[in-house]
């Protein structure tokens, strides 16, 4: 199994590494793979693990990336508009990143205070965006990671591999990533990426439904007689 073999494969499956390596990069990835997986077997109380420092290279595969700087509703609307531009809502107030055929592009935001109408729809991805990554070790344990500096690969394919370097802080189940303490290796898991937009839509919809039912339950609880 070569380096490309590792990055294109689900690392929770058995991988046989070769005895010799062809480059320093390959050697470091193999080492990260071979190192003991992070906090294996302590998954239940991972949330109580405060401010641990990573002491070895760790290999992970990315299961999901979510922009937590934007609301789920906004991301859901953007995806819906991308999937079905003809029926997108046309009164939108939030910035949009929709890239659709020109005829369906909408002016969805008008700044009432701004005289300069050419500056509509600020579609530039905000550099300060924070992404929450769900990552998985070879042992199958799932952790989160959050970036504190912009990560150039934040729109990567699911199944991509990363190595997290020693010195990285792990707090309450979450690695705190900077560009300097993580190496992006690329890779893909085809099945995970199939119909990704639809899956994300379903995810956002389910989350919003969940919020809604929580609110409804709370409201109901408040209304219940205090007997």
């Amino acid at each position, binding site marked *: 199994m070569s380096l490309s073999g590792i990055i294109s494969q689900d690392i929770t499956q058995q991988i046989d590494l070769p005895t010799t390596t062809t480059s320093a990069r390959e050697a470091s990835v193999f080492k990260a793979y071979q190192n003991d997986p992070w906090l294996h077997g302590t998954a239940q109380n991972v949330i109580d693990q405060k401010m641990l420092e990573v002491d070895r290279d760790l290999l992970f595969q990315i299961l999901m990336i979510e922009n937590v700087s*934007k609301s789920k509703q906004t991301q859901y609307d953007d995806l819906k508009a991308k999937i079905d531009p003809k*029926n997108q809502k*046309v009164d939108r*107030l939030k910035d949009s990143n929709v890239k659709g055929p020109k005829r369906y592009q909408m002016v969805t935001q*008008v700044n009432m205070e701004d*005289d300069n109408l050419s500056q509509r729809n600020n579609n530039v991805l905000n550099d300060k965006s924070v992404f929450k990554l769900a990552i998985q070790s070879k042992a199958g344990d799932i952790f989160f990671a959050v970036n504190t500096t912009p990560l150039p690969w934040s729109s990567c394919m699911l199944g991509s591999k990363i190595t997290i370097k020693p010195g990285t802080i792990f*707090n*309450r189940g979450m690695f*705190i990533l900077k560009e300097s303490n993580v190496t992006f290796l690329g890779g893909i898991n085809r099945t995970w990426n199939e119909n990704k937009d639809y899956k994300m839509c379903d995810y956002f919809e389910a989350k919003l439904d969940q919020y809604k039912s929580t609110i409804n339950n709370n409201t109901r609880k408040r209304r219940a007689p205090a007997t």
Partner: protein
Amino acid sequence: MKVLCVAEKNSIAKSVSQILGGGRSTSRASGYTYVKNYDFNFYGFPFANRECQVTMTSVAGHLSSLDFDNSQYGWGKCNIFELFDAPLSELMDKNQQKIAENIKREARNADYLMIWTDCDREGEYIGWEVFQAAQKGNRRLTDGLVYRAIFSHLERSHILNAAKNPGKLDMRSVSAVGTRIELDLRTGVSFTRLLTGTMGKKVQEANNISNDRSNGNSRAGNKNEKVIISYGPCQFPTLGFVVDRYERIKHFTPEEFWYIQLQLNDEANGLSTTFQWDRGHLFDRLSVLALYENSLEFAGNKAKVIDLQSKPTSKYRPLPLTTVELQKNCARYLRLNAKQSLAAAEKLYQKGFLSYPRTETDIFPATMDLRSLVEKQAQLDESTNSNKTAWASYAANLISENPETNNRFKFPRSGSHDDKAHPPIHPITSLAPNAQIDSIERRVYEYVARHFLACCSEDAKGQTSTLTLDWAEEKFTASGLVVLERNFLDVYPWAKWETTKQLPRLEINQECEISKAEMRSGSTSPPKPMTESELIMLMDANGIGTDATIAEHIEKIKARNYIRSEKSGKETNLHPTVLGIALVHGFEAIGLEDSFAKPFQRREMEEDLKKICQGELTKREVLADIIEKYRGYWTKTNQSKNTLLEVYERLRTRIS
């Protein structure tokens, strides 16, 4: 040699004849009260090469309208589907007949016809209508003898130049407008009849019930009033904006977010400053908690000043006033709806107080004497001191040589729109307290005058300071503003720009103690209901209607009871009615290939019209293509009448 000139409105004819006639034009009646004929002599037309006797007259907008023959294609007299290719004829109402008769009469002895309608697509079409009318009176007036004045405003040298360098009527633009008129008619009438036939009775019954319940005080209309459920290619997308907003509010789910906030207390002067997180807020509690604890662990209650910026800043004076801006701002600042403000501006124009209020232009021509217009607002004559308006002394200061003020007359900023027909809206003469105008007109005049003076002023000047703290690599900022010169703000009370709280005195790289570092939470709130000013902007931005018709479309869907306006505090909100929602949802359920309630179809048609103007498509091709699509939509809708009714019934039961 005789030349007949025809403008789009009497005011233009009057102004142009005064310029071309050197102030020596005489006016006479035309047979229609609001149009006059102006006679004068002019030397300078390139086609005549001698002094000409000129008669300048005008129309009053379009000279004819297109319609079906009522005896054969009237309501209930034909199969609706036939309307997609039934013959059309040009009709004139009584006033249009009087105007056309005048043109016919005046053309009888004319050697040349010169069109002075507005230089836009609609103006080109009206010019062609004028040519048709003139030809009826004088068959000798062929294409070669018809010229077209190309002008964008009524400044003297510009008008003289237009008279000396005429062009020809652009028949492609005429075709484009002809296409639009025919499409609007065929699609509008066929779908209005279908919708009214399908839903009219049901809606009437529902209205009667709601009228009975409310003892006739319902908004739903009079019991005996026949319900018309109209379709219009601009009406439906206008309704779509309002319904989409309603849906967004109705289905809104609040989402919780979290953020970090720092507070610094300066005990020496009792100053407390809040620093906001550079990341704003995040929709994930765990992420914020991890970052918060990380900073707390590594930096404790110490933060470092990493950036300190102080720079001059300006608040820009407004751009010259267009119709859409006028309507938008009158809605926001004066709480007048688009129809009220435009109607008031039209009246003020007719009474000579304001310039022509239908314009898309936000650039004043460089040659225009704006200083003299400011002088008029100042009313410098001491004897009329008591008649001065509230903003007269501001205007006087603007043109004074007072060395104590930096706010002197400055030529307005230029926007990026020029409709080549009219300058931005501006006051013409000042307003005496006893002027014969109503209170709404007075408020609109004041707004236009103040806006104009603000345009001719200096920007407001200030100094902003921004202090950035680093708390274990997380950045936090606080900003402050000191307004140094208010300038245009003094005459434009609607723009808010105030000095804020002072920032603490800290130096770069200074370590400071944080008094409070908090992780806080909040939740998203639903969008506000659509306001009229927002709707105007959305329509304008998405190409639904023009500056002149946007207000009509909004009024039409109010009159049809698709939306209703409701005062809520200072705002007037627009809400869709059951019928309005049912129409949008009904068509969604039918599933036409292109939704009627979205702006895309209209925009596509606009693109086709542009192609006609550029010679890439013909009227016949565009008509054939779009009519074919509408035939398909009509057949599908006709087969799905029950869907429309079911959706209406369902919504009515649920909502009422």
